[in-house]
């Protein structure tokens, strides 16, 4: 009986889905209607598929509404403006530091060994800073609990 039902159901097969979705041509739609008039199994299948479609449509698959997403988008704006702010700040610092270093290097009144000493101190500090910064950034990227508020 089951195999017989399957055979009858296959007469229109996927057209049943196309029919309930309103995606068939007029001719195909009429074919489904005629078939379902004569075939109780396909009629039943059509009803089941309609109910299934309505159930999925009424299911609550996400708990996050429009307001939540609007807030999240505002967060995006804040993040972008903050990013631009940091970019300008760091860019300014780098330009100022570059100019200061250039002035320091071309200043003939300072002894070369003094220049070397200061270059070693500030260069070492810069390397240490970059090393710590890199580590922090890596941690931040891989820490799955970073957004957890305590």
């Amino acid at each position, binding site marked *: 009986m089951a195999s017989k039902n399957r055979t009858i159901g296959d007469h229109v*097969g*996927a*057209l*049943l*889905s*196309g029919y309930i*979705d309103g*995606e068939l041509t007029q001719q195909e739609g009429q074919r489904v209607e005629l078939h379902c008039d004569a075939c109780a199994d396909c009629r039943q299948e059509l009803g*089941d*598929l309609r109910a*299934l*479609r309505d*159930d*999925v*449509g*009424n*299911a*609550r*698959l*996400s*708990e*996050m*509404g*429009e307001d*939540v*997403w*609007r807030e*999240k*988008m505002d967060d*995006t704006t804040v993040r*972008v403006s903050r990013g631009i702010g940091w970019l300008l700040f760091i860019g300014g610092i780098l330009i100022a530091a570059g100019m200061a270093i250039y002035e320091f290097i071309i200043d003939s009144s300072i002894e070369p060994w003094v220049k070397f000493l200061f270059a070693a101190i500030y260069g070492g500090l810069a390397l240490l800073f970059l090393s710590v910064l890199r580590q922090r950034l890596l941690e931040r990227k891989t820490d799955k609990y970073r957004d957890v508020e305590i």
Partner: protein
Amino acid sequence: MRQELAQLGGGAHALAIQLLGNADDAADAVHDAFETALSRPDAYDAAKGPLKPWFLRVVRNRCFDMLRRRRDSDVPVDSLIDSCATPDEALDTAQRACAINQALARIATEKREIVVLRDYLDLSYAEIADVLRIAPGTVMSRLHRARLALKEALNTDGK
């Protein structure tokens, strides 16, 4: 565009949950997609179609990027199953919605995805083909197979 995107957020989140199996990861994927859409508004060409399928495709691509990084394309089934069998949810509709969630979790990701795109997000077949990057002629048969699988999963759950 912001207003439209905010309206699409819930549906996009639902799709991302089905792909990633996790509501938090799904929220991240949708948020990333928002950033992409807002930072490059020129990427969307209104002449080529509505915003909804375009944005869902961006979300879907983001989900696949996350899955690739996870190196695990199979969504853990249990993570999709909502623990919704609470005594408070005695209403038939709520129970039915729970059953749908559980049955969706038991079918393959590509089937889940196409059912959600059509029946939950109400996309046309042409839009589904656009989101999934498949031939429009294959949507109906794929969707039908997915619905039959979902129906079977529902019946299995009901027994």
